């Protein structure tokens, strides 16, 4: 098994904040690992410039559009996103001279709105009870009615998984020559598809495991099951396991990461860690790698780091991740 631990001289030298995206640390979690022969690692994506894994995706979406000649400075980029992708796009668009309009449900945490405004993005709110589906629907409708928008559409754009295929996965492979399981959250599917494809190509036998949010009933506001949505970039055949995590469990494990490993991460990472530890417990040896998509600074107002679970308001009606 690899013991590729070594001191890096520094995080690298870059000519621009956009170039500094990626190159995140891989950290071993010895206390959470359930077995001595199984090593648990977290890829700390909160160390990206705007604080989430979506910096990789946003950069890839914009560079791809520039390469294909689909956008020009001053143009408005439109994207349905309830948070991290929007924040990353806002930073990159501000830097490169594009306008950004994001469509998001009206029940996301206040910090997200603040961060988007801070980087100069315009926000269009969609009905919170329709969750992300509602934001996607509204953005697609706006784009259909106004051809001056360019919509990168992370749910259907291969530049999203490619950010991981050509980035995150290569960084993991630089540090570990064996990976038994890779665990990430399932949202657009970009992280799982891009890393999954590359890790399977390079290592063969690696389990790709999705942790997904069990949305609370108040945000399951569909009129019919046919209003459901499956991001076009998802190839479910690439997944070996797909496990849901309730909001309560996700928050419990977010706290556990803080208490036992002193890692300050967002709610999705709690859910992903819960699944990663379970998968690690099923193995006898090997490396299990999971993704910490962001840190917890966008969740402060909810009190989840200090208040008892039963005192957290809107546990089921908030889109936590």
């Amino acid at each position, binding site marked *: 098994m690899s013991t590729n631990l070594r001191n890096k001289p520094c995080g690298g030298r870059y000519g621009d904040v956009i170039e500094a995206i990626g190159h995140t640390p891989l950290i071993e979690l010895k206390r959470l690992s359930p077995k001595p022969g199984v090593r648990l690692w977290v890829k700390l994506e909160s160390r990206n410039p705007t604080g989430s894994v979506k910096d990789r995706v946003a950069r890839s979406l914009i560079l791809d559009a520039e390469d294909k000649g689909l956008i020009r400075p001053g143009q408005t980029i439109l994207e349905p996103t309830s948070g991290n992708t929007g924040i990353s796009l806002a930073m990159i668009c501000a830097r490169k001279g594009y306008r950004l309009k994001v469509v998001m449900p009206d029940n996301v945490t206040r910090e997200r709105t603040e961060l988007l405004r801070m980087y100069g993005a315009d926000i269009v709110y969609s009905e919170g009870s329709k969750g992300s589906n509602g934001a996607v629907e509204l953005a697609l409708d706006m784009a259909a009615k106004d051809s001056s928008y360019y919509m990168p559409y992370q749910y259907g754009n291969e530049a999203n998984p490619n950010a991981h295929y050509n980035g995150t996965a290569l960084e993991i492979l630089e540090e570990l020559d064996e990976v038994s399981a890779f665990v990430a959250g399932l949202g657009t599917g970009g992280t799982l598809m891009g890393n999954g494809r590359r890790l399977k190509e390079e290592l063969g036998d690696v389990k790709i495991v999705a942790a997904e949010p069990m949305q609370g*009933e108040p945000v399951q506001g569909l009129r*019919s099951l046919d209003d459901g949505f499956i991001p076009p970039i998802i190839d479910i055949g690439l997944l070996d396991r797909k*496990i849901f995590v309730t909001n309560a469990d996700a928050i419990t494990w977010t706290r556990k990461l803080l208490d036992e490993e002193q890692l300050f991460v967002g709610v999705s990472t709690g859910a992903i860690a819960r699944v990663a530890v379970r998968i690690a417990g099923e193995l006898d040896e090997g490396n299990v790698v999971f993704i910490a998509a962001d840190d917890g600074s966008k969740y402060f107002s909810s009190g989840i780091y200090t208040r008892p679970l039963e005192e957290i308001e809107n546990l089921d009606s908030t889109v936590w991740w």
Partner: protein
Amino acid sequence: MATIKIPPVLRPAVGGEREISADGENVGEILRAVVEEHPSTSAQLFGADGDLNRYVNVYLNDEDVRVLDGLDTSVGSGDTLVILPAMAGGAR
């Protein structure tokens, strides 16, 4: 007898119940037993090809049966099937 958790969107088709039970050795048998008891769930649960409706996710306890053995996934008597609509992740 397995327990089946019904999402809000499907409850009108099962008389408003949040939870029902049905017999069967695997996911397909159990869901077909649900359809027999509540015929209006048929079009919601199954596609025209007889496979699971594309926008329905069925979980054996907490694992999606599509990446297990699909409708052939074995179900034990103490297991719970959770039916959920396919949704666009969360805060992405």
